């Protein structure tokens, strides 16, 4: 799956070899459920279709509050994949000095405490 970034939606790449989900950019789509619906479905299908280590990399610039509910469901899908016995590694990247994205990463980490979840800042 490859979705190109726009001014208000992130780039999303989901590859099977290697098994990796990368999301990066802005997230304030006009219709959150329309934009994220397919992504949530794809993540939820991983558990029945593949096995092995899943790497997740997220590097957002801004996420509006209504995107949070889609992001939460994506993390639920990722966590379900872990619960099926697979290794999962999440790296949440915030830009240097971006306290908002740093804190949001910490908030998701707090909500999904069983996930191997790293929040880091980069320049």
């Amino acid at each position, binding site marked *: 799956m490859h979705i190109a970034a726009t001014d208000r939606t992130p780039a999303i790449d989901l590859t099977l070899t290697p098994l990796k989900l990368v999301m990066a950019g802005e997230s304030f789509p006009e219709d959150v459920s329309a934009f994220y619906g397919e992504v949530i479905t794809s993540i939820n299908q991983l558990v029945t279709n593949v096995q092995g280590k899943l790497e997740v990399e997220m590097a957002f610039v801004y996420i*509006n509050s209504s995107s949070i509910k889609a992001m*939460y469901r994506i993390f639920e899908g990722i966590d379900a994949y872990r619960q099926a016995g697979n290794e999962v590694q999440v790296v949440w990247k915030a830009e240097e000095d971006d*306290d908002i994205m740093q804190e949001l990463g910490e908030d998701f980490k707090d909500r999904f405490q069983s996930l191997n979840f790293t929040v880091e800042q980069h320049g």
Partner: protein
Amino acid sequence: MDLSQAILLRNSLRNNHVIMAYNGTVSDDLMVTLADLLKERLVANDDVKRSKLIFAVFMEGVQNLIWHGKEHEENMGMILITEHNKEITIMCGNRIEKDKTQGLKDRLAQIEGADKDTIRQMYRDGMSHASEHEGPGSGLGLLEIARRATQPISYTFVDVDEHSVDFIMAATI
């Protein structure tokens, strides 16, 4: 409106340090357009950290107007931004149905009395329930605004008639 009244209005905007004022239909396109203008101004005048706080508060405030404006036949909202003594205040107001005010009042009262750590915990708890929230929002917008504002949020409700209430809230960064 005659021209002398236009002058009075302009003086009032100037005396109140208004840098952006809008009254009318609030659409998604309008939000993006105003956000771009605001961003340009912020990047020129502010540090990046503060700009992000201001941008986040603006977006959440205006999204509230878009979603809750749709519930009312007059889909009208007001956006005012003032800048004074290096503080930016974002005010968003709309007319809402009277029977929908109590839930909002309860929520605001909860947020109003909470410190930053409590607001963050309320936000985290809200994240877990965001997907159950009806409509396009997540139930996190007010918490997001309160979290990013550097002072407690303020708000007021003014009765219009037996069915409607004017609601306005302000957040300062």
